[in-house]
């Protein structure tokens, strides 16, 4: 992979030492799986499969897998915050999950003990912000993790198309005051994320620091409270999912017709660059972002 021209001209290369290739799934933990399922369905996600041994459901649209985890132990985090659903995990597609996991732990990640039962896949994971987890998945190319741990729901299209070409654009993480630099270093170290220049921003909430995955497929936005804000003492957390679309206007119109409500104030309203859905169930909102490519 070495290119002599790079050395000569000092062109920075983007290392991708885990072989990251996008997001395999995002997981919500909740004590109210039906209510959350209803919200997800208005957004275009369809339930396609059920976990073999736990109260876990797989929703899908296009290339996006979204897991609703209502397994008693996992949903406890949601019970702690007034039954609001919690973004509890993000799974990254990597070249070799075990090697990636070993590397992360060597660099100072906290490994998550596996809860896999007999005949279930062990998916290695490390701790993320606020009790969330980062899973590392390498079985996404020829066959999928869902073939083993999930049973398809009969009579349902296992691959429903995405509304308005929606895909995972990234995640928004809330961090404590002064902690962005710590997390930037963390994501650089663990996943080879890189910081975007200050003037490169997406969406309608251009705050904080934005990191890009080394595969270029998704973004990670870190948002601190404004200095003038009263501390809400909320722990750091994964706040919302960003959904990419080439036509925000069309996506907003389509979602509105399905009952999705958007925030429409003078400072924040749907526009070409993006839109923000109203919070449902106290914590679930999605940000639509214009994808340029």
């Amino acid at each position: 992979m070495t290119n002599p021209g790079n050395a000569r001209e000092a062109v920075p290369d983007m290392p991708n030492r885990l072989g990251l290739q996008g997001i395999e799934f995002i997981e919500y933990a909740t004590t109210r799986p039906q209510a959350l399922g209803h919200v997800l369905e208005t957004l275009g996600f369809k339930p396609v499969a059920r976990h073999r041994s736990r109260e876990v459901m797989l929703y899908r649209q296009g290339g996006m897998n979204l897991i609703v985890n209502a397994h008693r132990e996992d949903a406890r985090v949601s019970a702690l915050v007034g039954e609001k659903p919690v973004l509890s995990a993000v799974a990254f597609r990597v070249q070799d999950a075990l090697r990636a996991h070993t590397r992360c732990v060597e660099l100072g990640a906290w490994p998550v003990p596996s809860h896999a039962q007999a005949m279930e896949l062990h998916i290695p994971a490390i701790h993320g912000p606020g009790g969330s987890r980062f899973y590392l998945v390498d079985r996404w190319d020829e066959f999928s993790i869902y073939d083993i741990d999930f049973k398809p729901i009969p009579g349902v299209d296992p691959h429903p198309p995405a509304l308005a070409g929606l895909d995972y654009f990234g995640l928004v993480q809330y961090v404590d005051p002064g902690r962005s630099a710590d997390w930037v270093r963390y994501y650089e170290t663990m996943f080879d994320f890189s910081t975007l220049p200050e003037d490169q921003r997406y969406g309608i909430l251009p705050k904080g620091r934005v990191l890009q995955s080394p595969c270029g497929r998704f973004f990670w936005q870190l948002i601190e409270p404004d200095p003038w804000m009263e501390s809400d003492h909320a722990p750091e957390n994964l706040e919302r999912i960003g959904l990419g679309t080439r036509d925000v206007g069309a996506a907003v119109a389509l979602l509105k017709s399905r009952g999705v409500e958007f925030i429409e104030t003078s400072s924040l309203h749907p526009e070409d660059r993006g839109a923000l859905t109203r919070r449902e169930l106290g914590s679930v909102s999605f940000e639509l972002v214009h994808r340029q490519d």
Partner: protein
Amino acid sequence: MNPIQNPAGLFDSYSLHSRSLAGPLESRLDALSSAGFGGLMLDAHDVVAHPQGADGVAQALRARGLRADALGTLHDFEGLDGAQHRHKIEVAKGLLETCARLGAPVLVVAASTAPQAGTERSALVRDLHKLAMLAVPLGLRVAYQAVSWARTAPGFIDAWDLVCEADCSNLGLCLDAFHILAGQNPLEDLIEVEPERLFQVRLSDFLWDTLPAPEGQGSHDARVFPGQGAHSEQLADLVMRLARLGWRGHYCLDAPNADHAQLPAAFVMAQARRSAQWLDEDVLHRAAPLPDWTRGDPAAR
């Protein structure tokens, strides 16, 4: 005990190492808050000795409105291999978890004195980087402290060089005046240190005019509060240099000695107050303690 005399919170900006006081932790905390001090550095021994552990200590601090400024101490961490390294990682994780439960923002790591510790720079940097990464999800910072008889970082500038090389925003330096005196570290080197990466400053004087013995033999028994030993001038110099550097943190007074171990905590706190007053009035010449909101404002200097 004398009634509280804490005009405009003079002592609130000072912190004390819990090992400077004797007795059950809760009576030490009482003495500390009665003396008007705002916070303390906790020794992990004190936390595990509490019947309710870290949660009990956190509750005791909250009840008295005290800050836990830091937790100490992770020893002999860096420069190890194989099973020893893995063991120390587990120890580090245990202390980080204690720190998080206490609500203490900083874990202090003392430079390794283990004869088994390697001194290869890249390995030391890698270990410090790893520790900093372990601290990120817990929202914690790590302060690396030189130890005058350490193999890995005997002087504060050695510790600072390793911290810089590891290059993590949550990894910084802990300055311990005792080791600066013992190691005869040149204070001019302080100009190298970035104040925002200076996570803790611990001040102790040394009772005797001879320098503390190497290897720490008996040296703990002769640490006294700043202004009450034979090295007050050097301490004053250190504090003035830190003030000029723009450091605005809480000075942590640290005076573990055999005398303090057999005196009532309230008695020792009276000494601590005298020391803080000496620093404020005779060294820093702070006209009057300024309210918190002026801290960090250059116009208020």
